[in-house]
Structure formats: C-alpha cells, structure tokens
C-alpha cells in the first residue's frame, strides 16, 4: 500500500464529510466517471449521495440506471450501507426550463420560445449549461434529501468557463448592447442614445443594412421578453456562489497525465484559490503502470539479449520485458509531468488512478475506482496483488465487451 512517489493521501475525508463535491477538469479526462465513483464510494461508506451527471458514457449511464433520460434523481441499485441516487442533466432543454421557471407569465414564456432568435440561439447560448448545472445543484441542495451531492461539470472548452458562466450569462442578458437594441423598439427617451454616443446609432444603421431591420426587431423582442428575469438570474447565481464557498463544498480537479489537461488542472487549482473555493484534491486518471523499480534500460538490455534465444519461453520473456520497459518509461514520464504541472501548488490530496480503470462499464468498475479515490485499494504497481484470477490467459483476452478490465476490486470494506 505504499503510495507512488508523487501521490499522497486519499479523498476519504471529502467523501465522508463534504456536502457538495464538484468534479472539474478538461474534456475527456474521466470527470464523469470520477464523479460517479465518488458518489458510489460515499454510499458504500454509509452516506446518502446524489450524483448529477452530464453526458455519461452509455454503459456508465446504464450502470447508474440512467438508460432513459432521468431528469429527476433516480435510485441506483447498489449493495451499500448508504444510498445512491443519480440523475442526468438534459442539456438540450435546459434553456427551455430556465424560461419556464423564470418567465413572469406563461404568455411571456411562450413569446420567448416563439422568437426566431431564441430558437436559433438558445441551445448554444454560452454559459447556459453551466448556469443550469449550478441552478439544479442549488435546488436539490435546498431539498436536503442527501448528505452529499456530487456534480459533474459540462465539457466546456476550458474548465475555467465553468466558474465564469453564470456571471457571463447574466451580464450578457443585462448588458449594454441589449439595452441599446431595445432602445429603438421601445422608443424611449433619446437621452440614453446620446449617452451611448455616436457608435450606437452608427452600429444600428450598419446592422440594419446588413441584416434588415426585421432581424433587429426580433433581437429586440427577444431581449424584451427577458425583461424582469435578469434579477432572478443574478440573485441565484450569487446564492450558488455563496453555497460553493462553504467549507463543506469542495472541488475535485480531474486530469489525465498529458501536459494540456495538466496545465488546465493547474490553472483551475489557482483559480479556486483566487475565488476562495475549496480544493479537496487532484485526481490523475489513466496513468500507466510503473511496473517495478527496475531501470527500463536494464529491462531493454535483457530483452535484447533474450530476443534471439532459440527457446520460445525466452523469447516470450523478451517480449514481456520490452513491454514492461516501455510502459514503465511512459509511467515515469507521466509522474514527472504531473509533478511539474503542480509544482509549488498546495494540493491537499493527489490520487493517481491506473490506466486500466480508464473505461468503466459497471458498478464494480466504479467501486474499484471509488476504492482508489478513498485509499482502500492500492494503485497498480503499488505491489497490491491485482487480478488473482487469470493473468494472461489468452482465452480471456477477447472479452472486450465484458467488464474484465478492472479486477482491482475494493478490499477492506464491504
């Protein structure tokens, strides 16, 4: 159970005591899997947990009982001391929900939905998804039904967008441009236009020439329909921020061991500190197995010496040694990259998850990752006896669609 050189601690404290955990990181690093594994670990450790996922892999969704769109929390069938619920945020209809919830009247909501600009822009209006994830978190937290809520964050271009999104959306909706566009249609006093200056009127003229005034009217309609909703957006965004700043709300930054996601992780760690948000720890997924303490060069030399041996057994050994030398070279470099990316940062916990856990198709696989995150299972290469069953039996090598790739079952807890 000796942790690998750069890894330290586990997320067991966060899993046992936090009330909100937010997983964040670059796209494709295993954020959703990590979120689900944390929720399951909490349930196994006796807590009642809810996982809010976004766009999970099909098999993961099935494992969580989310084959159908589950816009409300659904119980997950787990054998655990606690309880696990899961839900999926439907990103397609988030904006519709937002309108429905906050429009002053149903008629106003209809007017917005019928607007041509809205129909074109709603699904992609920047920050909407992030805002809705936060709003959903707020709502579910208020219910008080769970000890812990784990939130996955949308695959934004940059992990940092996530923190800025609510602010960006509200400032856009109440922005100067908006008031400007509404001005001609509202035919309110000319004082405002004078204040904005020459640029505004000229812009209106240009825009009118390029797109036709009809489009401008649509835009004005669109924003007018939102009138009165901005305050609600802003108030809730502020409340969510207060909620996230509480010490029991913690962030788990997820990365894979390549320089770009690691860079993103470092930026996010810095950003959390600036914002006064709490970092539970960093999880690095998909690390290669360091294998052993042998110098890769020594392994390669031995492999070369054996490669021409007439004995088939020896040639097989040569191939195995060359493979391990290769893996271990990558593993060492990955750990060096992780260390370099997080240098001089205060990282309370750094957990490394092995390459084999990369794809998870069932609750056992999730539980195995959860075990890694809470320190119940050692990382591959830590000397833990992994896969006592059938190492290397080629008959099992093709069970690609079976979940045979995470044999490191949790040990030490039921």
């Amino acid at each position, binding site marked *: 159970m000796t942790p690998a050189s750069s890894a330290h601690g586990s997320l067991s404290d966060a899993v046992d005591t936090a009330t909100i955990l937010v997983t964040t990181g*670059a*796209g*494709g690093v295993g954020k959703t899997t990590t979120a689900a594994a944390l929720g399951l670990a909490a349930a196994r450790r006796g807590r009642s947990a809810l996982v809010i996922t976004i766009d999970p*892999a*099909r098999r993961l969704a099935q494992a969580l009982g989310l084959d159908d769109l589950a816009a409300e929390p659904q119980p997950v069938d787990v054998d655990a001391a606690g309880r696990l619920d899961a839900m999926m945020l439907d990103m397609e209809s988030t904006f519709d929900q937002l309108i429905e919830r906050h429009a002053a009247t149903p008629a106003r909501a209809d007017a917005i939905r019928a607007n*041509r*600009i809205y129909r*074109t822009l709603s*699904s*992609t*209006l920047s920050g909407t998804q992030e805002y809705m994830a936060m709003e959903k978190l707020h709502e579910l937290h208020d219910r008080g039904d769970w000890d812990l809520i784990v939130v996955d964050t949308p*695959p934004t271009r940059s992990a940092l967008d996530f923190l800025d999104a609510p602010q960006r959306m509200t400032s*856009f909706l109440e922005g*100067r*441009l908006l008031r*400007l566009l509404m001005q001609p249609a509202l035919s309110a006093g000319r004082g405002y236009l004078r204040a904005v200056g020459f*640029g*505004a009127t*000229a*812009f209106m003229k240009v825009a009118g020439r*390029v*797109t036709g005034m009809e*489009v401008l009217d*649509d835009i004005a309609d669109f924003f007018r329909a939102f009138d009165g909703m901005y305050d609600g957006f802003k108030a809730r965004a502020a409340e969510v921020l207060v909620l996230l700043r509480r010490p029991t709300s913690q962030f788990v930054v997820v990365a894979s061991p390549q*320089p770009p996601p690691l860079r993103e992780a470092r930026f996010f760690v810095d950003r959390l500190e600036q914002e006064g948000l709490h970092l539970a720890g960093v999880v690095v997924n998909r690390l290669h*197995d360091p*294998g*052993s303490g*042998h110098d890769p060069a020594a*392994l390669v*030399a*031995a492999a070369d*010496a*054996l490669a021409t041996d007439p004995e*088939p*057994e020896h*040639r*097989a*050994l040569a*191939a195995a*040694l060359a*493979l*391990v030398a*290769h*893996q271990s070279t990558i593993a060492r*470099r990955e750990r060096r990259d992780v260390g370099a990316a997080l240098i001089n940062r205060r990282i309370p916990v750094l957990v490394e998850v092995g390459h*084999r856990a990369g*794809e998870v198709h069932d609750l056992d696989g999730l539980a195995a990752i959860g075990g890694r995150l809470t320190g119940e299972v050692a990382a591959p290469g830590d*000397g833990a006896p992994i*896969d006592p069953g059938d*190492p*290397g*039996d*080629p*008959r*099992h*090598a*093709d069970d*690609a669609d079976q979940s045979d*790739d995470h044999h490191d079952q949790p040990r030490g807890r039921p």
Partner: protein
Amino acid sequence: MATASSDAPPRTGRGTWPVHDGHDDLFGANVLLVTGKGGVGKTTTAAALALAAADSGRDTLVVEVEGRHTLSRAFATPPWDYHEREFRPGLWGVALDPAESVYEYLELFYGLKRVQWMMERSSALDFVTTAAPGLRDLLLVGKVYEIEARRRDDGRRRFDTIIVDAPPTGRIVPFLQSPTAVTEIVRVGPIRRQSAQIREMLLDPRRTCAVLVTLLEEMPVTEAVEGVGSLADAGIATGAIVANQVVLPAVDGPDAGLVAAWSAPDVIAAAAGVGLDLDAPDVSMLQRQVADHRRHLARQRHLANRLATGSTPILVLPDLATDAVDVPTLQVLADTIARQVGAEGPRGRDVGPLVRDLLEGDPEDRDDRGRP
C-alpha cells in the same frame, strides 16, 4: 513475433477494412474538417494530415478556429494570426478570429473603415463573438468559404487543401449548420445570399469532407459512429475516420500464452542468465502487464470492428507514446498516413500488421475462441 500474416484470407461476415486509395482519395475534397470528441487528438491529427498533404505537393492551409494556438505550438512556430503565413514550404497556417471576420466583412462589403471602433464602443462585438455562437460560427465558416473561393492567376484554387481543426463532435453540426440557421432568420440581403453559397460548399463532398478522429475507447468510438450519422443527416460527407493512439501489439497471442503458463523459478533463472535480477513479485507483475496488454489489444479490436462496419475509409495512427507533440512526431504520423494511403515513402510506421491485428486478431486467439 509477427501478427496475423499478410496473406490471411479475408474474413467473411465482417466486410473489409475500408481504406483510401491514394492521396487523391484522402485529399479529394478541398476542405477537410477535422473533428472528434474532446481529448482524442483532433489537433494532432489535423496537423499530421496537413503535413501529409503538403508532403504530397499540395499547397495546404491549416486553419485554427478555437484560438488556442495549439496548432502553431505543435509546429513550433510563433502563434498564428488572421493572415495566412507560410511556415514551411507548401504549408500555411491561419488562426481565425470572429471579431476580425466581422471587421473584414463589413469593410469588404460596405467600405466601413470605422466599424471596428464603433463596434468596440457599443459592445456589439460581445454579442457577435461570444454570446451568440450561431453568428460566431457563421463568421468562421464564412471565412473558410472565402479562402476556399480564392483563385490564383491561372484559375487554380489558391490552396489545394484546407485543413480545419474544427470544433469537437458535440458542436460540429451546429457549427456547420450556422449558415442554414441564418438563412432562416435573415430573409433578404447579402448575408442570406452568402449563407446559401456557404451551404453549397459544405454540402458538396468534392469541396467539403469531415474527418472524424477517435481513440479506440468506448465513448469516443460511440461518438464517432454517431458523428458520421449526424453529419450525414446534415448533408455533410465523412471522408475518413482516424483511429488515433492505437497501441501496437508488443506481445503476440502465443507468447502471451507462454507468459501466462510461466513457472517463476524458470523465468528468474532465464533473466539471471542475461544479468537481470528478477524476483517472484516481478514475475507476477510481468504476467499482469502482459495480460493487461492483451486485454487492451482485444478491446481495440472490438472497437475497431465497430468503426469498420460502414464504408468510410479508416486511417490508423499508432500510439507513439511521446510526451508533447512536436514536429518529428508529426512527421512520423504524416508518413504513416502516406503509407496507409499507398503513397511511396521510406519513412513512417508500417501499420499494416497493426491494422490486420485490429480487424482479424491473432489466428491463435481465433482458434481459442472458436469464432470464425
């Protein structure tokens, strides 16, 4: 140590691995839009394709649309800007910027010199470039259209191949449909007319093709297969699927069987014979890693077969296990692409055995499983 022999009979029931027939096939369209799920190596693939295109004698432009400067970094050049720059013989780079597109557009069509200043003052730019991705996308696609339409004095296209590091699969269809969306909103005027012309370029497979990049992992493969479908629904042809970072077989099936049946003392003695000091845990570790490796290869095969069900040609890029993408790495990948499309070239990895392994597996494995 060879994998399946090259003269293995074609297998029935699974079809054949669809491949490109030469550079003209791969680079048949003027514009290649490279997309894929986040984290699959979209940008690296775009760069490698661009190198391969340039090496084949095509004047090639690489287009960055997300403003992250990852392409220029991969090519080890200073960050690109809005003006194409030839950074290698036959290879140009450009980083598109929606704001610049707005200025250029308005200046070009309306002769408005002071537009930039005006737009900055009125914060209209925020609206166009951030708040309204539909418009933003249209500006970017429109710029690609403008570049594609350029001609040399002799009437040939200015760039033979334009490779766009496009938005990820999740956003590619809205990105490409932005001209359609605009024609719905804007009923008259120049914007509507131009949007229709842009659509024409996107829907013509001789002018525009998508290239879908994926890892041989479940989610990316699912997204790639779905991506081909949703692009087809939007009328956009997919010219190639690229399986990226494919692990090369290091231990074949028979050897893996021998490893699994090892007796630790024998192995320790054999290693000692060549001066390597192993102990029993080392032997288990070797067995475990070989088993993991074989499992990984099996999963790759399984997922490769999911990709190979259609008729879209597939390119395989090996996992070079390099840290950062640099020019020598890109060159190896570009040469590997060239070899796969049947072009002459001494360099590059021969991924033929890998491809055969992906599609067919070891004869040994097949017999064990009793599958066809």
